[in-house]
């Protein structure tokens, strides 16, 4: 296997100046995404990479947005689109003290305050364009086409202001630390921005995950540029936008704690970090307490952590749901017992990455550490949604900014393909079949899924096996949907969950193994800086 970028990086470490001109004449990496960036590799057209990638990202996101969204024309409850719209309705029309209390049966607000402020801002802007969109009570379940366009625009703008700059900075800094050539950095950036899962959930299904992920990623950007206090600030913002960012919290905590004890114990740093977190949280919750009264904070926290709900809602490819065909957890155990079991198993699952990060608080381990920790949560924690797979998936994809060898590309693209597949039941319900098919195939093709497999025989086996299983499931569903298997409509969902669970387990193990190997690598070699 010839790896041009590795060759380049080897040469670069020897004589950095000469390689610059050499890297331009490199052949394109053997996958189509790299081929598209090939014309832009010369020094005179390097400046084009970022604007062109941004424009292409915008175009694809917007084109996905032309399609349906969750709950479109689906009374009585509609879906996540209505939830987001409804929050704009209540935050613009009601006093702060009613935000977390108002008619909780109809998509009551159950996200932290930053989402509430974000909704209010967007609601105010939208109300200036058309007040009917967010009229109290009257606007419920609105399917206005102009409203859809407005909401799509807000999702795009929110992503462009948070997630996209965070990714751009990340690739720049992380790629530099990993000695990637400019061309490879462009390819990595394209691969991350064109990731189909986030695109279809935020701009198809409709949510603002990119804001939460963007803040979390900005935190990582700060950590890898040694701004640990700013990093904690941004991570708190991420948590206060969507509680799901908690999937990353143990890993980040372990990393920061590790920084406070390595190479020697640094108490002021620990105190300052704690203070940053507390002050940021206070700032975020302050408006809620000031305008709504102190009990709002308690109600907000009560709404945000839904322990009253079950182990899972829809079918999701995690441990509990996948093994449910063997053990009927929800029937055999009570909710409290299951909560404890989930807490224990999650803690065990996230322990290895946290320990690795604590003992090796190295920047280059951050993406893998976050991914491993989030996979642990996804597999074992309480109330997991199929969309939550974005949390482990995004940092896993970020690994591309560190190495673009065929093996990594193959694994990362495989995980994205499987993750797309795991969301198929949700996307089908949303009426996004076309977008699902196009984005999955496009990304798989762009990343060379059809051409390259991992080096190891086990990887080859898993990839080929899972692709065949996915294909068979889709074909069987398409052709037997109305046939003899009509009486078992859940069959496809169960098959989906089992296949995805198997793949996610392998993905999780791969991330853990990779994290372990990376953490050992640093020990043998002396530090590069």
């Amino acid at each position, binding site marked *: 296997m010839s790896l041009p970028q590795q060759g380049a990086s080897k040469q670069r470490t020897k004589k950095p100046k000469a390689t610059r001109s050499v890297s331009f004449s490199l052949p394109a990496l053997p996958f*189509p995404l790299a081929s598209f960036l090939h014309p832009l590799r010369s020094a005179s057209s390097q400046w084009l990479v970022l604007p062109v990638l941004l424009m292409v990202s915008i175009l694809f996101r917007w*084109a996905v947005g032309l399609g349906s969204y969750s709950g479109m024309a689906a009374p009585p409850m509609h879906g996540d689109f209505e939830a987001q719209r409804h929050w704009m309705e209540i935050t613009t029309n009601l006093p702060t003290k009613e935000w977390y209390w108002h008619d909780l049966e109809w998509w009551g607000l159950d996200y932290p305050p930053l989402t509430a402020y974000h909704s209010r801002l967007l609601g105010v802007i939208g109300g200036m364009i058309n007040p009917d969109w967010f009229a109290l009570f009257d606007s419920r379940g609105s399917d206005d086409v102009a409203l859809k366009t407005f909401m799509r625009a807000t999702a795009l703008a929110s992503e462009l202001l948070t997630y996209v700059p965070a990714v751009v900075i990340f690739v720049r800094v992380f790629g530099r630390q990993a000695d990637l050539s400019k061309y490879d950095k462009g390819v990595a950036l394209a691969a991350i921005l064109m990731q189909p899962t986030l695109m279809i959930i935020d701009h198809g299904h409709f949510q603002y995950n990119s804001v939460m992920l963007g803040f979390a990623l900005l935190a990582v950007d700060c950590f890898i540029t040694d701004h640990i206090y700013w990093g904690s600030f941004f991570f708190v913002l991420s948590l206060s936008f969507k509680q799901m960012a908690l999937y990353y919290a143990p890993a980040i905590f372990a990393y920061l704690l590790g920084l406070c004890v390595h190479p020697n114990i640094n108490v002021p740093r620990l105190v300052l970090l704690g203070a940053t977190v507390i002050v940021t949280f206070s700032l975020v919750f302050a408006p809620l307490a000031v305008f709504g009264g102190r009990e709002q904070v308690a109600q907000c926290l009560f709404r945000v952590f839904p322990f009253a709900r079950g182990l899972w809602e829809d079918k999701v490819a995690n441990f509990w749901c996948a093994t449910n065909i063997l053990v009927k957890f929800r029937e055999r155990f009570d909710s409290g017992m299951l909560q404890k079991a989930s807490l224990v198993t999650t803690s065990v699952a996230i322990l290895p990455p946290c320990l690795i990060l604590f003992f090796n608080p190295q920047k280059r381990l951050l993406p893998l550490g976050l991914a491993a920790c989030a996979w642990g949560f996804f597999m074992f924690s309480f109330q997991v949604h199929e969309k939550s797979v974005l949390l482990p998936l995004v940092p896993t994809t970020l690994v591309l900014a560190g190495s673009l060898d065929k093996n990594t590309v193959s694994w990362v693209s495989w995980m994205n393909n499987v993750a797309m597949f795991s969301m198929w039941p949700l996307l089908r319900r949303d009426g996004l079949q076309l977008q699902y098919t196009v984005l999955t195939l496009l990304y798989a093709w*762009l990343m060379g899924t059809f051409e390259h497999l991992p080096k190891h025989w086990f990887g080859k086996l898993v990839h080929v096996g899972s692709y065949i299983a996915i294909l068979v499931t889709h074909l069987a569903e398409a052709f037997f949907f109305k046939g003899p298997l009509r009486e078992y409509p859940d069959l496809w969902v169960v098959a989906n969950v089992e296949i995805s669970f198997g793949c996610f387990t392998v993905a999780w193990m791969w991330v853990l193994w990779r994290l372990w190997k990376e953490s050992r690598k640093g020990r043998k070699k002396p530090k590069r800086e």
Partner: protein
Amino acid sequence: MDKFHPSLRECIIAATAFKLLLFPAYKSTDFEVHRNWLAITHSLPVKEWYYEKTSEWTLDYPPFFAAFEWVLSHVAQFFDPAMLDVRNLEYDSVQTVYFQRLSVMFTELLLVYALQKFINTSPESSKRSAHAVALSILLSPGFLIIDHIHFQYNGFLYGILILSITLARSPSARLYSGFLFAALLCFKHIYLYLAPAYFVFLLRAYCLGDSIFQIRFANVIKLGAGIIGIVAAAFGPFVYWGQTPQLLSRLFPFSRGLCHAYWAPNIWAIYSFIDRVLIIVAPRLGLPVNQEALTSVTRGLVGDTTFAVLPEITPRKTFLLTLFFQILSLIKLWTNPTYETFLGAVTLCGYASFLFGWHVHEKAILLVVVPFSLLALKDRRYLGAFRPLAVAGHVSLFPLLFTAPEFLIKTVYTIAWLVVFLTAFDALVSPVAVNTRRFLLDRFTMLFIIIAIPLIAYTSLFHKALFGDRYEFLPLMFNSSYSAVGVVGSWVGFCWLFFSS
């Protein structure tokens, strides 16, 4: 592995993915037009094709296109037979949309084939430029806006045109170039505008020898018989049934006005603009103002345009002007019948008919952009003339899509295309000595491109905020006048290059 990256194949895959995502996008009445034609050709005997008028969108393309719809309709019945019912007006089930949109993408593969042929037949030294040009045509915002959103079948028609132009490159294949063009005319008669260049070129370079008195009779007979055969195959049955007058009245509806709905960016757009300005200035200059015209031009939408101050324009005048400018380029082609002069003459015929023609559609700009693209990388001066056309030609298509969700698609796609290809062309084109570069044109181009930004912002955002629904004609008028300046500017530049070289 392909020689140049990204390859044509890679681009068509990525573009196809994007176009598939555009399935739910806005579609114009042309969608219903083509659905209706599918229904007509599928359910009625051939004799009635040009008489059927249940829908207002009657069949007004030549017989080959009708036959093409007939072929498509045989596939369409497997998607949704209901779309093939003539009385099913405005029918657009999901299957119908999928089928029609897919048919555009599928037939566009002919364009890909033609472009591949164009690259293959280019001399080795200019293969890289040819590749860039081919990609620019394949990914052109023109085809994206007109074919894949607005809805038409230009992709495969321009594929035939490019194939025909490519064949004209080698002397041995010129016969087939002529045949293909004749067939193209039987698909869509708008290409008649380019016919004079073909006529002169084939006559001079294929039918006559080195001296004009040396007639190659064998060639004359081959070409003549072939073309007559093709045209007879298309029109013969209808002539035989005595439907000629009906067919002609459908193909050439002369009752339409000078300017089409949105004012194509041509001389008449500038003419109307000056007329509007004169309405304000005329009383001070003591010029007579036609009061009737005051209301008509301001609408600026469909219908007849009457001028308030400037003299009226008749179809006859536009025809003579078009012919005059076409003949100028044909004289040059007659004296110098090479492939490149031919390509230049085709471009100039397109320019003349677009700039001076009667009832020109903004979509017809592709008649200029596509042939010019093939020449744009000849040297830096050609590229200089191409730039304003690339900007103006595509900006002028924006009013075709007026719905909010498509705004981002059309603007961002066009800007991305312009940025990528104009810089790529700039890097590829062979430099020219400084003194032969015309700085005036370069400066003009720069200024022109910069003005596009506030213009697009005004027409699509600020106008609505400032005036609401009033003065609807203003953004359209600004848009077409601006684009007209660009098209005319590039035409002047191109004429100079063509006649001075």
